[in-house]
Protein backbone atom coordinates (compact mmCIF):
# COMPACT_ATOMS: atom_id res chain seq x y z
CA UNK A 1 0.00 0.00 0.00
CA UNK A 2 1.26 3.43 -0.87
CA UNK A 3 -0.27 6.42 0.84
CA UNK A 4 -0.65 9.44 -1.38
CA UNK A 5 -0.89 12.94 -0.05
CA UNK A 6 -4.15 14.54 -1.26
CA UNK A 7 -2.35 17.80 -2.08
CA UNK A 8 0.09 15.92 -4.29
CA UNK A 9 -2.79 14.30 -6.12
CA UNK A 10 -4.40 17.52 -7.33
CA UNK A 11 -1.14 18.88 -8.74
CA UNK A 12 -0.92 16.43 -11.60
CA UNK A 13 1.86 16.77 -14.16
CA UNK A 14 0.78 17.97 -17.60
CA UNK A 15 1.60 14.62 -19.18
CA UNK A 16 -1.17 13.00 -17.17
CA UNK A 17 -3.56 15.83 -17.95
CA UNK A 18 -2.85 15.31 -21.64
CA UNK A 19 -3.38 11.56 -21.35
CA UNK A 20 -6.71 12.16 -19.61
CA UNK A 21 -7.85 14.64 -22.27
CA UNK A 22 -6.96 12.05 -24.89
CA UNK A 23 -8.99 9.33 -23.16
CA UNK A 24 -11.88 11.74 -22.88
CA UNK A 25 -11.73 12.70 -26.56
CA UNK A 26 -11.65 9.08 -27.67
CA UNK A 27 -14.69 8.29 -25.56
CA UNK A 28 -16.62 11.33 -26.81
CA UNK A 29 -16.12 10.38 -30.46
CA UNK A 30 -17.08 7.30 -32.39
CA UNK A 31 -14.35 5.00 -33.69
CA UNK A 32 -14.31 4.60 -37.44
CA UNK A 33 -12.49 1.25 -37.33
CA UNK A 34 -15.45 -0.77 -38.57
CA UNK A 35 -16.35 1.57 -41.43
CA UNK A 36 -12.69 1.88 -42.49
CA UNK A 37 -12.36 -1.93 -42.50
CA UNK A 38 -15.56 -2.41 -44.50
CA UNK A 39 -14.49 0.27 -46.99
CA UNK A 40 -11.10 -1.41 -47.47
CA UNK A 41 -12.70 -4.84 -48.04
CA UNK A 42 -15.26 -3.43 -50.48
CA UNK A 43 -12.63 -1.55 -52.48
CA UNK A 44 -10.29 -4.55 -52.56
CA UNK A 45 -13.06 -6.88 -53.80
CA UNK A 46 -14.34 -4.37 -56.37
CA UNK A 47 -10.81 -4.03 -57.76
CA UNK A 48 -9.81 -7.71 -57.60
CA UNK A 49 -13.04 -9.33 -58.83
CA UNK A 50 -13.09 -8.20 -62.50
CA UNK A 51 -9.36 -8.86 -62.93
CA UNK A 52 -9.64 -12.29 -61.32
CA UNK A 53 -12.66 -13.22 -63.47
CA UNK A 54 -10.87 -12.22 -66.69
CA UNK A 55 -7.73 -14.12 -65.66
CA UNK A 56 -9.76 -17.21 -64.72
CA UNK A 57 -11.52 -17.09 -68.08
CA UNK A 58 -8.19 -16.80 -69.90
CA UNK A 59 -6.65 -19.70 -67.98
CA UNK A 60 -9.74 -21.79 -68.65
CA UNK A 61 -10.45 -22.23 -64.94
CA UNK A 62 -13.98 -23.27 -64.04
CA UNK A 63 -15.79 -24.15 -60.85
CA UNK A 64 -18.06 -27.17 -61.45
CA UNK A 65 -21.71 -26.24 -61.29
CA UNK A 66 -21.06 -22.48 -61.25
CA UNK A 67 -21.37 -20.33 -64.35
CA UNK A 68 -18.75 -17.59 -63.88
CA UNK A 69 -19.06 -14.46 -65.96
CA UNK A 70 -16.37 -14.61 -68.65
CA UNK A 71 -14.03 -11.95 -70.01
CA UNK A 72 -16.65 -10.79 -72.50
CA UNK A 73 -19.24 -10.24 -69.77
CA UNK A 74 -16.76 -8.22 -67.67
CA UNK A 75 -15.69 -6.16 -70.68
CA UNK A 76 -19.25 -5.39 -71.69
CA UNK A 77 -20.14 -4.37 -68.14
CA UNK A 78 -17.04 -2.18 -67.79
CA UNK A 79 -17.77 -0.45 -71.08
CA UNK A 80 -21.52 -0.47 -70.58
CA UNK A 81 -23.16 2.34 -72.45
CA UNK A 82 -26.27 4.25 -71.53
CA UNK A 83 -28.27 3.77 -68.33
CA UNK A 84 -26.29 0.74 -67.07
CA UNK A 85 -22.96 2.60 -67.15
CA UNK A 86 -24.51 5.68 -65.54
CA UNK A 87 -26.14 3.54 -62.83
CA UNK A 88 -22.82 1.82 -62.01
CA UNK A 89 -21.02 5.18 -61.94
CA UNK A 90 -23.74 6.75 -59.82
CA UNK A 91 -23.60 3.89 -57.31
CA UNK A 92 -19.80 4.20 -57.04
CA UNK A 93 -20.05 7.98 -56.57
CA UNK A 94 -22.70 7.49 -53.87
CA UNK A 95 -20.41 5.05 -52.00
CA UNK A 96 -17.62 7.64 -52.30
CA UNK A 97 -19.85 10.35 -50.83
CA UNK A 98 -20.84 8.13 -47.89
CA UNK A 99 -17.16 7.39 -47.15
CA UNK A 100 -16.29 11.10 -47.35
CA UNK A 101 -19.09 11.97 -44.92
CA UNK A 102 -17.87 9.25 -42.54
CA UNK A 103 -14.32 10.61 -42.78
CA UNK A 104 -15.17 14.28 -42.33
CA UNK A 105 -18.19 14.26 -39.97
CA UNK A 106 -17.28 14.93 -36.32
CA UNK A 107 -18.71 11.57 -35.23
CA UNK A 108 -19.70 12.76 -31.80
CA UNK A 109 -21.24 10.33 -29.36
CA UNK A 110 -24.16 11.44 -27.21
CA UNK A 111 -22.02 11.95 -24.13
CA UNK A 112 -20.68 14.81 -22.06
CA UNK A 113 -17.37 15.17 -20.25
CA UNK A 114 -17.39 16.40 -16.65
CA UNK A 115 -14.53 18.28 -15.04
CA UNK A 116 -12.95 16.34 -12.18
CA UNK A 117 -9.40 16.49 -10.84
CA UNK A 118 -7.08 13.72 -11.96
CA UNK A 119 -9.87 11.61 -13.48
CA UNK A 120 -11.66 11.77 -16.81
CA UNK A 121 -15.41 11.49 -16.32
CA UNK A 122 -17.88 10.85 -19.15
CA UNK A 123 -21.62 10.67 -18.73
CA UNK A 124 -24.21 9.47 -21.25
CA UNK A 125 -26.60 12.21 -22.36
CA UNK A 126 -29.53 9.93 -21.52
CA UNK A 127 -28.36 9.54 -17.95
CA UNK A 128 -27.80 13.30 -17.71
CA UNK A 129 -31.28 14.03 -19.10
CA UNK A 130 -32.90 11.57 -16.69
CA UNK A 131 -31.14 13.13 -13.72
CA UNK A 132 -32.11 16.67 -14.76
CA UNK A 133 -35.72 15.56 -15.32
CA UNK A 134 -35.91 13.97 -11.88
CA UNK A 135 -34.47 17.05 -10.15
CA UNK A 136 -36.62 19.47 -12.15
CA UNK A 137 -39.80 17.50 -11.44
CA UNK A 138 -39.04 17.45 -7.73
CA UNK A 139 -38.42 21.22 -7.71
CA UNK A 140 -41.65 21.85 -9.61
CA UNK A 141 -43.52 19.62 -7.12
CA UNK A 142 -44.53 17.14 -9.78
CA UNK A 143 -44.16 13.38 -10.15
CA UNK A 144 -41.01 12.32 -12.07
CA UNK A 145 -42.95 11.35 -15.19
CA UNK A 146 -44.19 14.95 -15.61
CA UNK A 147 -40.77 16.26 -16.70
CA UNK A 148 -38.88 15.43 -19.86
CA UNK A 149 -35.41 16.71 -20.76
CA UNK A 150 -33.59 16.83 -24.07
CA UNK A 151 -29.82 17.21 -23.68
CA UNK A 152 -27.99 18.67 -26.66
CA UNK A 153 -24.39 19.73 -27.06
CA UNK A 154 -24.57 22.97 -25.10
CA UNK A 155 -28.05 22.92 -23.69
CA UNK A 156 -30.61 21.02 -21.68
CA UNK A 157 -34.28 21.71 -22.43
CA UNK A 158 -36.77 20.70 -19.74
CA UNK A 159 -40.42 20.29 -20.70
CA UNK A 160 -42.98 20.08 -17.91
CA UNK A 161 -46.31 18.44 -18.65
CA UNK A 162 -48.80 19.47 -15.96
CA UNK A 163 -51.91 17.47 -15.16
CA UNK A 164 -55.16 19.06 -16.36
CA UNK A 165 -56.14 22.01 -14.19
CA UNK A 166 -52.73 22.37 -12.49
CA UNK A 167 -49.80 24.67 -13.05
CA UNK A 168 -46.16 23.68 -12.58
CA UNK A 169 -43.38 26.04 -11.57
CA UNK A 170 -41.10 26.17 -14.63
CA UNK A 171 -38.79 28.77 -13.04
CA UNK A 172 -38.14 26.49 -10.05
CA UNK A 173 -37.51 23.56 -12.39
CA UNK A 174 -35.03 25.61 -14.40
CA UNK A 175 -33.25 26.75 -11.26
CA UNK A 176 -32.98 23.21 -9.91
CA UNK A 177 -31.70 21.97 -13.28
CA UNK A 178 -29.13 24.76 -13.41
CA UNK A 179 -27.94 23.98 -9.90
CA UNK A 180 -27.53 20.30 -10.76
CA UNK A 181 -25.58 21.14 -13.93
CA UNK A 182 -23.36 23.53 -11.94
CA UNK A 183 -22.60 20.74 -9.48
CA UNK A 184 -21.84 18.33 -12.32
CA UNK A 185 -19.42 20.83 -13.94
CA UNK A 186 -19.64 19.77 -17.60
CA UNK A 187 -16.79 20.74 -19.89
CA UNK A 188 -18.08 23.65 -21.97
CA UNK A 189 -21.15 25.70 -21.16
CA UNK A 190 -24.54 24.08 -20.74
CA UNK A 191 -27.61 26.27 -20.74
CA UNK A 192 -30.72 24.98 -18.98
CA UNK A 193 -34.14 26.09 -20.17
CA UNK A 194 -37.54 24.98 -18.88
CA UNK A 195 -41.01 25.43 -20.26
CA UNK A 196 -44.48 24.33 -19.33
CA UNK A 197 -46.28 22.39 -22.00
CA UNK A 198 -49.86 23.42 -22.67
CA UNK A 199 -52.21 20.72 -23.80
Amino acid sequence: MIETDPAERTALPTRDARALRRLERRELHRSRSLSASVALWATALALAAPGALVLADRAGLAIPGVQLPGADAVASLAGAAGPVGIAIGGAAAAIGLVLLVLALAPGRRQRHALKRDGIAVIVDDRVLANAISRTAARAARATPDRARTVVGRGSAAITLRPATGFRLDAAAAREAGTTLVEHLRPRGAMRVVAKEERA
Partner: protein
Amino acid sequence: MSRSSRPLNRILLLVLGIAWLAAGAWLVLRQALPDALAPVQPALDAAAALQPLGIPLDWAIASAAAGGALLVLAIVHTATRGRGRTGDAAVAGSVVVDRAAVRDVLRQELGDHPDVLDVSVQPWRRRRAAAWRVVVHTRTGAALDRVVDRAAEAARATRDALGTDAPILVHIAGGLRAAVASDRRAA
Protein backbone atom coordinates in the same frame (compact mmCIF):
# COMPACT_ATOMS: atom_id res chain seq x y z
CA MET B 1 -11.36 1.74 -26.00
CA SER B 2 -8.31 0.35 -27.73
CA ARG B 3 -4.95 1.26 -29.18
CA SER B 4 -6.25 1.70 -32.74
CA SER B 5 -5.22 4.92 -34.45
CA ARG B 6 -8.25 7.13 -35.05
CA PRO B 7 -6.56 9.52 -37.53
CA LEU B 8 -5.46 6.55 -39.66
CA ASN B 9 -9.08 5.38 -39.98
CA ARG B 10 -10.13 8.86 -41.03
CA ILE B 11 -7.38 9.13 -43.63
CA LEU B 12 -8.26 5.68 -45.04
CA LEU B 13 -11.92 6.66 -45.34
CA LEU B 14 -10.98 9.98 -46.95
CA VAL B 15 -8.67 8.41 -49.55
CA LEU B 16 -11.09 5.58 -50.40
CA GLY B 17 -14.00 8.03 -50.55
CA ILE B 18 -12.18 10.27 -53.02
CA ALA B 19 -11.20 7.23 -55.11
CA TRP B 20 -14.78 5.90 -55.28
CA LEU B 21 -16.17 9.35 -56.01
CA ALA B 22 -13.64 9.98 -58.78
CA ALA B 23 -14.23 6.55 -60.38
CA GLY B 24 -18.00 7.01 -60.19
CA ALA B 25 -17.87 10.53 -61.58
CA TRP B 26 -15.67 9.36 -64.45
CA LEU B 27 -18.10 6.51 -65.34
CA VAL B 28 -21.10 8.83 -65.27
CA LEU B 29 -19.42 11.64 -67.20
CA ARG B 30 -18.15 9.26 -69.88
CA GLN B 31 -21.74 8.26 -70.65
CA ALA B 32 -23.66 11.43 -69.95
CA LEU B 33 -21.30 14.28 -70.84
CA PRO B 34 -18.34 13.01 -72.90
CA ASP B 35 -17.36 16.61 -73.70
CA ALA B 36 -16.76 17.40 -70.04
CA LEU B 37 -13.94 14.86 -69.94
CA ALA B 38 -12.16 16.37 -72.97
CA PRO B 39 -9.64 18.45 -70.95
CA VAL B 40 -8.45 15.42 -68.91
CA GLN B 41 -8.74 12.82 -71.69
CA PRO B 42 -5.11 13.20 -72.92
CA ALA B 43 -3.81 12.62 -69.40
CA LEU B 44 -6.01 9.53 -69.00
CA ASP B 45 -4.91 8.18 -72.38
CA ALA B 46 -1.26 8.76 -71.48
CA ALA B 47 -1.74 6.89 -68.19
CA ALA B 48 -3.45 4.01 -69.99
CA ALA B 49 -0.60 3.79 -72.52
CA LEU B 50 2.05 3.80 -69.81
CA GLN B 51 4.53 0.90 -70.05
CA PRO B 52 6.51 0.95 -66.81
CA LEU B 53 7.98 -2.51 -67.40
CA GLY B 54 8.54 -2.10 -71.11
CA ILE B 55 5.55 -4.30 -71.95
CA PRO B 56 1.97 -3.19 -72.57
CA LEU B 57 0.04 -3.08 -69.30
CA ASP B 58 -2.45 -5.93 -68.90
CA TRP B 59 -5.47 -4.41 -67.10
CA ALA B 60 -6.74 -7.76 -65.85
CA ILE B 61 -3.43 -8.53 -64.15
CA ALA B 62 -3.04 -4.96 -62.88
CA SER B 63 -6.50 -4.83 -61.31
CA ALA B 64 -6.18 -8.31 -59.80
CA ALA B 65 -2.76 -7.41 -58.34
CA ALA B 66 -3.97 -4.05 -56.95
CA GLY B 67 -7.06 -5.73 -55.53
CA GLY B 68 -4.91 -8.46 -53.97
CA ALA B 69 -2.63 -5.88 -52.34
CA LEU B 70 -5.66 -4.01 -50.96
CA LEU B 71 -7.07 -7.32 -49.73
CA VAL B 72 -3.89 -7.93 -47.72
CA LEU B 73 -4.16 -4.38 -46.35
CA ALA B 74 -7.81 -5.01 -45.43
CA ILE B 75 -6.91 -8.24 -43.60
CA VAL B 76 -4.12 -6.50 -41.67
CA HIS B 77 -6.38 -3.54 -40.83
CA THR B 78 -9.22 -5.75 -39.61
CA ALA B 79 -6.89 -7.97 -37.57
CA THR B 80 -5.16 -5.07 -35.80
CA ARG B 81 -8.26 -3.21 -34.63
CA GLY B 82 -9.21 -3.10 -30.96
CA ARG B 83 -5.86 -4.30 -29.65
CA GLY B 84 -4.52 -3.32 -26.25
CA ARG B 85 -7.25 -4.71 -24.03
CA THR B 86 -5.81 -6.68 -21.15
CA GLY B 87 -6.91 -8.36 -17.96
CA ASP B 88 -3.94 -7.03 -16.00
CA ALA B 89 -4.82 -3.73 -14.37
CA ALA B 90 -1.42 -3.09 -12.80
CA VAL B 91 1.96 -4.75 -13.07
CA ALA B 92 4.77 -4.14 -10.56
CA GLY B 93 7.68 -6.48 -11.12
CA SER B 94 6.34 -9.98 -10.73
CA VAL B 95 3.12 -8.82 -9.07
CA VAL B 96 0.12 -8.58 -11.39
CA VAL B 97 -3.21 -7.12 -10.26
CA ASP B 98 -6.18 -8.55 -12.13
CA ARG B 99 -9.01 -6.32 -13.27
CA ALA B 100 -11.47 -8.28 -11.13
CA ALA B 101 -9.40 -7.36 -8.07
CA VAL B 102 -9.50 -3.70 -9.07
CA ARG B 103 -13.26 -3.92 -9.47
CA ASP B 104 -13.60 -5.43 -6.01
CA VAL B 105 -11.48 -2.68 -4.44
CA LEU B 106 -13.49 -0.08 -6.35
CA ARG B 107 -16.78 -1.57 -5.14
CA GLN B 108 -15.46 -1.47 -1.60
CA GLU B 109 -14.48 2.20 -1.97
CA LEU B 110 -17.79 3.05 -3.62
CA GLY B 111 -19.74 1.44 -0.81
CA ASP B 112 -23.42 0.59 -1.12
CA HIS B 113 -25.03 3.36 -3.11
CA PRO B 114 -28.69 2.84 -4.04
CA ASP B 115 -28.25 4.53 -7.44
CA VAL B 116 -25.28 2.40 -8.54
CA LEU B 117 -26.31 -0.87 -10.17
CA ASP B 118 -22.98 -2.29 -11.25
CA VAL B 119 -19.33 -1.41 -11.75
CA SER B 120 -16.93 -2.88 -14.28
CA VAL B 121 -13.25 -2.22 -15.03
CA GLN B 122 -11.50 -2.67 -18.37
CA PRO B 123 -7.77 -1.96 -18.36
CA TRP B 124 -5.89 -1.53 -21.59
CA ARG B 125 -2.30 -1.07 -22.44
CA ARG B 126 -0.75 1.43 -24.83
CA ARG B 127 3.02 1.64 -25.11
CA ARG B 128 4.03 0.54 -21.63
CA ALA B 129 1.47 2.41 -19.54
CA ALA B 130 -1.87 0.94 -18.57
CA ALA B 131 -5.09 2.93 -18.36
CA TRP B 132 -8.41 1.94 -16.82
CA ARG B 133 -11.89 2.43 -18.14
CA VAL B 134 -14.39 2.20 -15.30
CA VAL B 135 -18.07 1.88 -16.23
CA VAL B 136 -20.56 2.77 -13.51
CA HIS B 137 -24.11 1.68 -14.39
CA THR B 138 -26.60 3.94 -12.66
CA ARG B 139 -30.29 3.77 -12.02
CA THR B 140 -32.59 5.89 -14.19
CA GLY B 141 -32.96 9.38 -12.68
CA ALA B 142 -30.08 8.91 -10.24
CA ALA B 143 -28.86 11.75 -8.01
CA LEU B 144 -26.12 12.24 -10.56
CA ASP B 145 -23.95 14.85 -8.83
CA ARG B 146 -23.53 12.62 -5.80
CA VAL B 147 -22.91 9.50 -7.91
CA VAL B 148 -20.27 11.28 -10.02
CA ASP B 149 -18.42 12.72 -7.02
CA ARG B 150 -18.49 9.40 -5.24
CA ALA B 151 -17.36 7.42 -8.29
CA ALA B 152 -14.49 9.84 -9.00
CA GLU B 153 -13.40 9.73 -5.36
CA ALA B 154 -13.60 5.91 -5.32
CA ALA B 155 -11.55 5.66 -8.51
CA ARG B 156 -8.87 7.94 -7.07
CA ALA B 157 -8.84 5.99 -3.80
CA THR B 158 -8.53 2.69 -5.68
CA ARG B 159 -5.61 4.00 -7.69
CA ASP B 160 -3.90 5.23 -4.54
CA ALA B 161 -4.59 1.97 -2.71
CA LEU B 162 -2.97 -0.02 -5.49
CA GLY B 163 -0.09 2.43 -5.79
CA THR B 164 -0.28 2.92 -9.56
CA ASP B 165 -0.52 6.07 -11.61
CA ALA B 166 -2.83 4.70 -14.33
CA PRO B 167 -4.97 7.34 -16.02
CA ILE B 168 -8.61 6.53 -15.24
CA LEU B 169 -11.70 7.21 -17.29
CA VAL B 170 -15.01 6.90 -15.44
CA HIS B 171 -18.03 6.37 -17.68
CA ILE B 172 -21.40 6.95 -16.04
CA ALA B 173 -23.78 4.85 -18.11
CA GLY B 174 -27.43 3.94 -18.03
CA GLY B 175 -28.33 1.43 -20.69
CA LEU B 176 -30.35 -1.75 -20.61
CA ARG B 177 -29.52 -2.56 -17.02
CA ALA B 178 -30.98 0.76 -15.86
CA ALA B 179 -34.08 0.22 -17.96
CA VAL B 180 -34.91 -3.19 -16.48
CA ALA B 181 -33.84 -2.51 -12.87
CA SER B 182 -36.76 -2.25 -10.46
CA ASP B 183 -37.38 1.03 -8.65
CA ARG B 184 -36.17 1.27 -5.11
CA ARG B 185 -38.50 3.49 -3.17
CA ALA B 186 -40.54 3.36 -0.02
CA ALA B 187 -44.14 2.58 -0.85
